[in-house]
């Protein structure tokens, strides 16, 4: 009964934005110590690092890298969204316009970047 009540209660965009921000943050918090540990191998154990880096050729790791970049992007934009929402006393239409212009600029910048590659 209780779980039924709670699941329905949360099905709206603002709550989903909150949980995406929270989960991406936790996932990054788990990833970053591992990341630094692997980077530290460059100093402590270069042979082991090379062995480890060869793993990055596998498809699974490439997908994981994509997820990682996605999490970073989601978390960054989630944070910007939260700061704009809480610290700028804008009306909701102003916020929508600001978010839309940021999204369009980001899209143009990514397209430009991909073309340059």
């Amino acid at each position, binding site marked *: 009964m209780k779980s039924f009540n709670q*699941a329905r209660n949360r099905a709206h965009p*603002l*709550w989903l934005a909150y949980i995406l921000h929270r989960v991406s943050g936790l996932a990054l918090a788990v990833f970053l110590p591992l990341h630094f540990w692997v980077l530290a191998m460059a100093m402590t154990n270069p042979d082991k690092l090379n062995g480890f880096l060869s793993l990055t050729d596998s498809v699974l790791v490439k997908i994981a890298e994509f997820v990682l970049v996605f999490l970073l992007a989601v978390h960054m934009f989630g944070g910007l969204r939260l700061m704009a929402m809480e610290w700028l006393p804008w009306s909701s239409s102003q916020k929508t316009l600001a978010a839309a212009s940021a999204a369009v600029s980001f899209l143009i910048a990514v397209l430009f970047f991909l073309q340059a590659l």
Partner: protein
Amino acid sequence: MPTDVIQVEIQRGTEKDSHVESFEVPAYENQTVLDLVSWVQQNTDPTLSYRFACRVGMCGSCGMMVNGVPRWTCRTHISKVLVNNTVLISPLRNLPIIKDLVVDMDPFFDKWVAAEGVHHGELTRHDPIASIDETSQARKEANAGIECINCSVCYSACDTVKGNDDYLGPAALQRAWTLLNDAKDEGREVILDAVSGRGGCHNCHSMGSCTSYCPNELDPMSAIAGLKRETTKRFFKRSH
């Protein structure tokens, strides 16, 4: 005579011992969720406990969870919430259940007072009445939250309330924001003290359920954001 029936599932019992009972209620063309509950109480089971008063969306006493979403039941048309001709009605979340659909509203109102949601006047009857500039930004902020009917729908919708017993909740904080912006209220410092404490506005994670479910379409989340800005400004002003 109506030909169809609606399956109504109602949570019965107390906090520790609750269960769901099913009822068949005749369907009418214009029927609210409160009408269904009243039909059950008047025709099937007179021991069903629930609360209502005005039936026109002004008193804020008929809040219930309808299919897991907090709503004012007197203004919720059943056709908008039926799923497979069935509706589940349970007591408001985040408040102690007294019996069936009746919750104890004391924690909700106690927090209203704890957030300094009371009038702070310093004038006497011999002073002139403070003038209100309807076009000022502060008055617009105050007006935005003034139609709150204390129904506790936002309080029930909020997951921060669920996870933190001390949290004052959206309605009380929105009231504090309204008074902070009211030219007739003199309680600026006590309000900011009250809302920057342990259970105050900075606990809010901006999940937005309060704003999504407020039956009067108010925006407590933005009111709380206003309190966050004002308390932070005061903190930095004090520290240098």
